[in-house]
């Protein structure tokens, strides 16, 4: 059994891992649809998006490993960290739920990600800017695909409306975390690496409101609840998802195919 790696918690590393881990963990959740989506075409669409996210995550984890300077590569960072060293937003690790939950969560995360990637195009770090150039196109499609389905389900049958309502109630309180700011993103902002997450909130809310208006949904009230995945403190679901993701690397160190 391979031992966990010890991560150096540099602010820039942590900043990139917040984005890269959110992509990685959401990719894992989306991949769970493979073979289970309501129709074949959506099965492929969700798998496509999962692979887009894996690609973004690979690029960010590789770069974070270089900035960390401890010789960790993308595989070690993806598969050999302890739970507390993952910095994805908690929303990404919530169980896959039904199709309504999946597309609503995708809309929330993809809108956030697209706004973030647009700003990362101007990063002072040329590698991050290059990654953003590719990722922003993917995020734009993820956002459009999800928005389309949210409107269809909200404006569809009584059953689909019921499901999107239930999904909204379940997921909304996890959105606040995406815009939590602390010393990590303050440092990124000061260095020109990327924006403060709090600065994404206003444009994100405007875009969500526009989709919700078309869908006949209302933005729920803010909740006092704060999830803390971006600080390494995760929900009860994280351990299970890591067990599944890490099993092969832990059992067969350095295994490739």
């Amino acid at each position, binding site marked *: 059994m391979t031992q966990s790696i010890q991560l150096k918690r540099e602010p820039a590393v942590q900043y990139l891992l917040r984005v890269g881990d959110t992509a990685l963990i959401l990719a894992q959740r989306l991949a769970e649809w493979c073979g289970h989506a309501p*129709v*074949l*075409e*959506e099965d*492929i*669409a969700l798998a*496509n998006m999962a692979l887009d996210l894996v690609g973004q995550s690979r690029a960010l984890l590789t770069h974070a490993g270089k900035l960390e300077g401890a010789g960790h590569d993308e595989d070690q960072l993806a598969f050999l960290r302890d739970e507390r060293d993952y910095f994805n937003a908690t929303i990404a690790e919530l169980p896959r739920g039904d199709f309504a939950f999946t597309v609503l969560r995708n809309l929330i995360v993809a809108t956030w990600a697209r706004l973030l990637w647009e700003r990362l195009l101007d990063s002072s770090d040329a590698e991050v800017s290059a990654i953003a150039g590719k990722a922003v196109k993917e995020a734009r499609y993820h956002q*459009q*695909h999800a928005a*389309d389905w949210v409107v*269809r389900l909200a404006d569809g049958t009584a059953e689909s409306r019921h499901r999107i309502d239930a999904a909204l109630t379940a997921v909304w309180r996890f959105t606040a975390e995406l815009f939590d700011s602390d010393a990590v993103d303050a440092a990124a902002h000061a260095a020109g690496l990327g924006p403060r997450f709090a600065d994404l909130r206003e444009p994100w809310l405007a875009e969500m409101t526009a989709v919700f208006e078309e869908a006949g949904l209302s933005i729920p009230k803010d909740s006092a609840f704060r999830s803390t995945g971006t600080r390494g403190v995760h929900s009860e679901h994280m351990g299970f998802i890591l067990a599944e993701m890490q099993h092969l690397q832990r059992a067969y160190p350095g295994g490739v195919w």
Partner: protein
Amino acid sequence: MSTSPVQNEWPLWEVFVRSKAGLDHKHCGSLHAADAKMAIQMGRDVYTRRQEGVSVWVVRSDQIVASDPGDKAMYFDPAEDKVYRHPTFYELPKSLDHM
């Protein structure tokens, strides 16, 4: 669609993909989708995953009018012995390279 009052399945669409600017859209398959917008999106997801295209067309399958397979002999066989319709009997000037 107008002939069946209850429609439980999404209608079928034919998908055409243009592989690069200047080339024709080519038929590459079909899929089920609720409407045109969804069909375009699914066409993109199903048929352009390996950089197959730069443009997608979709058309409702029931909007395509096809020749009757029973007419095959009458329609197509007569062309069989008319090789002179191929433009291979002309001497082309040397200056025309790429014909």
